[in-house]
């Protein structure tokens, strides 16, 4: 894992000092809330419905056990004993007092963490494949590039007041586990026939009220020109992105309105100029960073054998464990999705326990996934059973990864000042309706995503089943979408028809799953069946009038 040197540490320390000064000026009345707002937002501090919410950056979703432990301690010290892992691989605390926020940031800085640019119209925390450095199908480890991106984007002076927020994701596998094409910029590290690494740039994707899948803008940008290419992409956006309407200000609208070809032409023109300026960190810097991401000291003699005689353990392995590039090791995912729970929430004790387990069983590493789960990336297969037992004791052995109850949900109207409807109670009711694990397994892979408003923090467009909460004349109403996906086969969901109330939406989902079970052919997932038979049979079942005896 990357470790700060004195330069990196000086930057986060300077930020803590600056923010402390800003908070002091606010508390002393020297600046108004209007003037303070953009400053605190640059630090991830939102004023929500009930309190301040602080969003802490977890760069490319990677943590060590000391950092994870601190996140647990912060939950106890400054919040109400829990934290909420988000769809952008970050963590949020919902009950923060303004006067304590600078101390919280100082605690974070003590473990090489921060809340820099976790909100505001700037370049946000870069996200990455949560299996980076571990996945069996990995071509290039994206983490060194993500760290280069982190440093480049931190306090970038030209791009701090963009038309709108800007999100970058980077992957290095053919399998896209980061919803890369639904970002302002998605970078896929690829190799050409000669074995050279290149960056494939997808620009102009996004969710929100106008979901779009990003087109390819740069086919094969040399990694040692990646920063220059990003500068060009951002500069063209800063120049032409719309500022008259915040709902049309994301880069996806610009790329859509002028077209991918014209946007590419402008980027190429700017890129040619920028290449003359020497803005790119030298090869030695990328090499230095790569040095932090070398493989941990795996036991080359570790066995691939796994005793699956405990049926509960076997179920968990089948669902939550993925293939590792190193023989004898596996990737274990801790699903933060208990029946009736809040997706992505973990208590301070659970967070600290996960830190301990990472230290003892995963070479001190953890990852946060955009699906609001936690990954232990490097677990020896021989340790899996012990690990599972310890997770089970703490209520963390939910064997529902990628099943219908592994729900992504935004905080919704329970916390968020932008929301139109609550997300959490809907997620809870769905997980209770489908509580039986055997039934979930029967339904197979089924990605269900809930957003409490059109801003789509819960990724509803990309759910095999998506739910969008809206406000209909003062009453919460839930629209149902089918057919979204976020991987290599990215697609956007389609609304079934009129919306439902809170109980109605759960019934509608159950009817949709019944259609799938009745219509599927061998090996088909819900999404595959939907793509094959289309919306009509689902719509018919969902909106059929109840029979008298029904």
């Amino acid at each position, binding site marked *: 894992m990357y470790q700060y040197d004195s330069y990196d540490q000086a930057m986060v320390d*300077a930020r803590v000092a600056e923010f402390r000064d800003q908070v002091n000026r606010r508390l002393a009345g020297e600046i108004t809330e209007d003037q303070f707002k*953009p400053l605190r937002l640059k630090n991830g501090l939102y004023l929500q419905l009930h309190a301040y919410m602080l969003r802490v950056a977890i760069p490319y979703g990677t943590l060590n056990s000391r950092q994870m432990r601190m996140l647990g301690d912060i939950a106890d010290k400054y919040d109400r004993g829990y934290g909420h892992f988000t769809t952008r691989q970050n963590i949020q605390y919902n009950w923060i007092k303004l006067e304590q926020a600078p101390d919280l940031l100082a605690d974070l800085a003590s473990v090489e963490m921060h809340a820099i640019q976790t909100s505001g119209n700037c370049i946000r925390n870069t996200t990455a494949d949560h299996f980076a450095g571990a996945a069996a199908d990995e071509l290039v480890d994206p983490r060194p590039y993500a760290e280069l991106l982190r440093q480049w984007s*931190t306090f970038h002076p*030209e791009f701090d*007041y963009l038309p709108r927020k800007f999100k970058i994701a980077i992957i290095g596998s053919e399998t896209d586990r980061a919803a890369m094409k639904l970002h302002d910029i998605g970078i896929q590290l690829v190799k050409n026939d000669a074995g050279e690494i290149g960056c494939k740039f997808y620009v102009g994707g996004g969710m929100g009220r106008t979901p779009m899948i990003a087109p390819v803008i740069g086919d094969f940008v040399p990694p040692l020109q990646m920063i220059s290419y990003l500068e060009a992409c951002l500069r063209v956006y800063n120049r032409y992105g719309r500022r008259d309407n915040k709902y049309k200000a994301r880069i996806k609208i610009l790329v859509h309105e002028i077209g991918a070809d014209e946007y590419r032409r402008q980027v190429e023109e700017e890129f040619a100029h920028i290449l003359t300026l020497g803005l790119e960190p030298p090869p030695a810097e990328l090499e230095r960073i790569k040095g932090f991401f070398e493989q941990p000291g795996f036991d080359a003699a570790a066995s691939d054998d796994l005793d699956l005689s405990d049926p509960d353990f076997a179920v968990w392995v089948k669902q939550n464990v993925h293939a590792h590039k190193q023989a004898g090791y596996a990737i274990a995912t801790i699903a933060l999705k208990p029946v009736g729970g809040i997706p992505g929430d973990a208590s301070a004790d659970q967070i600290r326990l996960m830190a301990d387990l990472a230290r003892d069983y995963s070479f001190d590493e953890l990852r946060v996934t955009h699906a609001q789960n936690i990954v232990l990336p490097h677990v020896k297969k021989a340790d899996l059973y012990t690990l599972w037992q310890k997770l089970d004791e703490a209520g963390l052995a939910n064997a529902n990864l990628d099943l219908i109850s592994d729900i992504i949900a935004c905080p919704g109207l329970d916390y968020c000042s932008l929301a139109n409807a609550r997300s959490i109670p809907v997620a809870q009711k769905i997980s209770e309706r489908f509580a039986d694990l055997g039934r979930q397994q029967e339904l197979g892979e089924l990605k269900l995503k809930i957003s409490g408003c059109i801003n789509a923090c819960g990724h509803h467009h990309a759910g095999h089943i998506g739910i969008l909460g809206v406000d209909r004349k003062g009453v919460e109403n839930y629209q149902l979408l089918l057919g979204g996906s976020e991987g290599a086969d990215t697609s956007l969901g389609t609304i079934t028809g009129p919306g439902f109330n809170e109980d109605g939406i759960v019934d509608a989902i159950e009817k949709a799953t019944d259609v799938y079970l009745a219509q599927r052919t061998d090996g088909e997932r819900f999404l595959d069946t939907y793509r094959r038979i289309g919306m009509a049979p689902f719509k018919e079942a969902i909106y059929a009038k109840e029979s008298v005896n029904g």
Partner: protein
Amino acid sequence: MVEQTLRYRSDEPVADPAVTVDAFADQSNATAVRIEPGDDARDLLPHLDRLALVEVNFPAYTDGRGYSAARILREHGYTGELRAIGDVLLDQLSHMRRCGFDSFAPNQDISREAADKAFATWPEVYQKTVDGRPAIWAKRHG
């Protein structure tokens, strides 16, 4: 009308009034121009040798187009005065300086002392821009 200008140059201020980018193209004797957010700074590139003052207007601090405009002018060799005017606030000063601004005429006065403190906010910088400060990566690999 702006009363106070924070200026970080040793030459004499330009007395000429700044004209619009459109007017500048037609006035071969003009030496000062004002860029509005919608203007393309690249239109000025053929005329850099006769320019002594470029004002970049920030009608609202949230509109960041002026940062790119300033940096583009400097990247192409403009050495005259580059002045940020309008809704220019204390907390934006250090980024503006990094993008090449060397004078500031904010709507609301900022003391020189406060401005100097703002410029000293960041002990180091991660990017190479146009302010001559070495990026952290350059220091690491001396």
